[in-house]
């Protein structure tokens, strides 16, 4: 069979809603595209552990200390699931890790920002995880089947995280003025990054991942779903949004004007020049490279003492 014939068959298979397994034939640009996408998702889970990890030592109760630890543990677990799926597409975890710590690959914009206090935990756990869940749930029907299988578990854990984040938020919202101020302060800092999280308007004609049905919905569609779902929930708690301020359209939808969105910070992050990019990557690089010996130990089967 010629390459063109195989490609045609693959395209038909995808068009009819067919799924792809790691061992199936796939065009190189499909493999590359899926790998890059899942690798970035995996990177984001492991880098996403860090902002919350920075808040973990200051947890205000024993139970929050354990539940936040468990929540971050889940995120690391998601990285484990995703790196395994990505590895089966032909790139080793070590290669992906080297690319990550040396700034050659990417991770989601929201994990390039600093955290200051417990209000950040509320925002990350509720609104950022809420945003992530909207985007991840949209991938459950992706054409790449191994990805969808791990996403099932990831999404169900994210549901739990969302509850956990909302739980923390509600406690702050019904607490002292200082606690309410913590949430508002965090919201002021995180709102624009959350809007950036969905990315600019998708170019449907050019987006290979949409064409191959790896992704099934556009960025603007996902952002709209997020706004409609969460803006009213934040407002009813008596908090307010900074720029870009969402406004209610006659249709009932919550809209953000494109001209209100400053994209410069996102562009800087795409160059790996976010406020915390360098520090977090350096820490991870130092620990990773300083512990090569650990991976060497694990690479050898146990020798049992005589």
């Amino acid at each position, binding site marked *: 069979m010629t390459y063109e014939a195989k490609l045609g068959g693959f395209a038909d298979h995808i068009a009819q809603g067919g*799924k792809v*397994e790691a061992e199936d034939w796939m065009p190189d640009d499909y493999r590359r595209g899926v790998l890059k996408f899942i690798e970035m998702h995996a990177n984001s889970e492991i880098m996403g552990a860090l902002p919350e990890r920075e808040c973990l030592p200051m947890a205000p109760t024993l*139970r929050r200390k*354990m*539940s936040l630890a*468990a929540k971050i543990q889940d995120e690391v677990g998601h990285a484990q699931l995703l790196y395994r799926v990505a590895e089966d597409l032909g790139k080793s975890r070590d290669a992906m890790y080297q690319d990550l710590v040396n700034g050659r690959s990417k991770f989601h914009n929201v994990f390039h920002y600093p955290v200051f206090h417990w209000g950040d935990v509320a925002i990350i756990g509720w609104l950022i995880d809420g945003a992530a869940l909207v985007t991840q749930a949209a991938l459950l029907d992706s054409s790449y*089947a191994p990805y*969808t*299988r791990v996403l*099932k578990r990831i999404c169900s854990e994210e*549901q*739990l995280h969302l*509850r*956990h984040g*909302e*739980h923390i*938020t*509600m*406690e702050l*919202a*019904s*607490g002292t*003025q200082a606690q*309410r101020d913590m949430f508002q302060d965090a919201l002021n800092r995180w709102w624009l990054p959350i809007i950036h999280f969905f990315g600019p308007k998708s170019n449907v004609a050019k987006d290979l991942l949409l064409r191959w049905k790896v992704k099934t919905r556009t960025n603007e569609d996902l952002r709209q779903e997020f706004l409609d779902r969460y803006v009213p929930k934040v407002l*009813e*708690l*008596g908090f307010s949004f900074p720029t870009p301020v969402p406004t209610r359209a006659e249709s009932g939808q919550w809209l953000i004007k494109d001209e209100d969105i400053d994209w410069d910070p996102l562009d800087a992050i795409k160059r790996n020049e976010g406020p915390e990019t360098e520090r977090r990557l350096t820490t991870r690089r130092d620990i990773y490279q300083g512990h090569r010996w650990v991976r060497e130990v694990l690479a050898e089967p146990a020798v049992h003492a005589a």
Partner: protein
Amino acid sequence: MDVYEVFRRSGHKDPFEHCGSVIASDSEMALLMAKECFLRRREGQHLWVARRTDIHSFKDESLLEIAADKSYRFPEAYRDVVAKREKARARAREVGAAAGESNR
């Protein structure tokens, strides 16, 4: 001859599930046997066999139990979020009213 454990999956979205075992001299024969024994009514679209001796488990499976309270890992622990939401809304109204008062 070895025991081969048999796993099948009905579609791409599901995990493989164990469905039985066969005794065979190699994996080729194990697959052929398993196909008709376990998938002859379209019970699955994917089939795996694995030699039983290649499957490992803890000798003492009580290790897998969760001994102490880990309720915070489960959704049930956050059910009271509904009541907390109500409390937060009430607090927001209280704060809003106070703000309105001071603006007058």
